[in-house]
């Protein structure tokens, strides 16, 4: 009986930890999304820019002049990287979700089992 309770507790702990991890991963996913949006905005801005415009890049506190092609390439590279990261995290989220769903069912099963045991005892 007591060991069952302990088992339930550890299951619940594991479930909660999974939920927390999932939350953190989802937050990371959201951050990537906003970065992607920002980079897309910059990319669009580059296409709208007249060819003569001078582009600067902020590095630390300093503005450095940068080649247009270089800047465009940098943004493209970033977008590619973010795309990959999003895909990676997306699959991570999916596996975590199914895992936490499994844990939830396990907790639920053990809970009903314990309840039935308690009822039959009383």
């Amino acid at each position, binding site marked *: 009986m007591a060991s069952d309770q302990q088992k339930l507790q550890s299951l619940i702990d594991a479930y909660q930890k999974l939920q927390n991890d999932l939350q953190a991963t989802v937050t990371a996913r959201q951050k990537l999304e906003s970065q992607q949006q*920002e980079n897309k905005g910059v990319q669009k*801005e580059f296409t709208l820019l007249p060819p003569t415009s001078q*582009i600067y*890049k*902020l590095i630390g506190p300093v503005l450095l002049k940068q080649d247009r092609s270089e*800047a465009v390439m940098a943004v493209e590279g*970033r977008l590619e990287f973010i795309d990959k990261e999003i895909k990676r995290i997306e699959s991570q989220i999916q596996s975590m979700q199914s895992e936490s769903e499994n844990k939830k069912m396990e907790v639920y099963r053990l809970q009903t089992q314990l309840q039935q045991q308690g009822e039959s005892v009383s």
Partner: protein
Amino acid sequence: MSSPTTTTSPPQTIDLTALPVAQLTNVKNQLTSELQHLTTSFSQLKQAQAKFRDCGNNVRDGLERGEGTPILVPLTPSLYVPGKLASTDTVLVDIGTGFYVEKTPPAAREFYSRKVEELGRNLQDLEKIVQGKQGNLNVVEDVLRQKVIAESSKGGGESSV
């Protein structure tokens, strides 16, 4: 029976009245936190829009006075040094992710008004979503209330729950 349904998962409709109170409470809590998140995002978007609008106005008002206008340059938020407007031909615009672009004042104003417009569209979309969520939340709360009332009256009659 016209069953209230959630639109949180469009492909499948769930009869809310069939759900137990505990689950309904979960749904309600989830909807509430979602709504809160969306409302926060909404106000953040509004702030961002206002900022862009301010920038556009600053470009217009700040530069029409022409070169040589005496200005105070903030070194820190509380320390200013006198200066002179050197050039009003071009301004440096932050277009995001650390990139700055030299633009003529009209182009800069156009950039900012475009940003304001974009954000306005996002705001409209978000508003629709918020309204939808709010509707869902209201429905769930209604059903939950009915359930609780029904259960408490039933519990009084049977004396055990």
